[in-house]
């Protein structure tokens, strides 16, 4: 079982949802790691949850990307560790340079708080083995800055090298380039995505569409 830590920055508000989803699939509660900590030894998977770290000042994720714990996450990633970033976590990963591109203000300018649907681009990664390739699943989203962008060469590389993890399946509401909702690092060990699979992991939440992601990680 992957030893898992969830990062906590001031302004993050989805860490409990994430911990519930992890504990439900893993059978063990993750460690919660304050942003000033720098020792991630013994952890296999670092999760950066959603919220509004440091008030989204300057740019979403910009302040968190400079925090002490993110230096440790870079070291963790460089030695092949797993990283999952959701929503603000995805923004922090792009701001840190651990994933390419950036998340711009939603094309329609509105904060989008609603369900969306995602298509699974590949199911041979540690994050998606419990989905089918091409499967479409429901995922809540809640963001003002989820409009994924990168230069055309980077987008071509992401698509050509199989690094697109998820695309918006029904409607691309935030205007993301090529309907990209989530991407992998070249080694497929870092995943960032805007919607919240952790918020659909129990019938009491209205569905379990997000649970296969955590079951995939639990089976790793």
């Amino acid at each position, binding site marked *: 079982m992957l030893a898992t830590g969830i990062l906590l920055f001031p302004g993050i508000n989805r860490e409990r949802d994430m911990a519930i989803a992890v504990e439900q699939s893993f059978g063990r509660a993750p460690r919660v790691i304050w942003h000033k900590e720098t020792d991630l030894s013994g952890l296999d998977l670092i999760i950066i949850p959603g919220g509004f770290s440091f008030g989204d000042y300057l740019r979403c994720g910009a302040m968190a990307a400079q925090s002490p714990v993110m230096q440790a996450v870079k070291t963790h990633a460089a030695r092949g560790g797993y990283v999952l970033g959701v929503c603000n976590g995805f923004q922090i990963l792009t701001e840190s340079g651990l994933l*390419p591109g950036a998340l711009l203000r939603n*094309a329609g300018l509105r904060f989008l708080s609603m369900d969306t649907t995602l298509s699974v681009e590949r199911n041979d990664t540690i994050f998606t083995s419990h989905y089918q390739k091409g499967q479409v699943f429901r995922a809540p989203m809640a963001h003002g800055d989820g409009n994924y*962008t990168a230069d055309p060469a980077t987008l071509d590389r992401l698509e050509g090298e199989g690094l697109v993890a998820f695309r918006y399946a029904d409607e691309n509401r935030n205007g993301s380039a090529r309907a990209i909702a989530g991407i992998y690092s070249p080694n497929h060990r870092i995943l960032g995505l805007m919607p919240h699979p952790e918020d659909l992991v129990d019938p009491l939440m209205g569905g379990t569409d997000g649970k296969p992601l955590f079951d995939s990680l639990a089976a790793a």
Partner: protein
Amino acid sequence: MKAIVTVMLKDGVLDPQGKAIGHALNNLGFAQVGDVRAGKIIELTLSETDPVAAKVAAEDMAQKLLANMVIESFKVEISA
């Protein structure tokens, strides 16, 4: 010494805020307004006294934090 860092989205990057401001100005009757781009200005008060060194430092800050070079460009002006 002050450094004034102006951060703008790069040309070609969609600026929905600029668009919305443009629409609002048109609605207010300013029919002459075409493209609008919105950015931000960051004023830094520096202990530096050498304007060249101040500019170098502010540019370093802009590249490392104040601007996201994937989507933004910046310019630095130094004033006394």
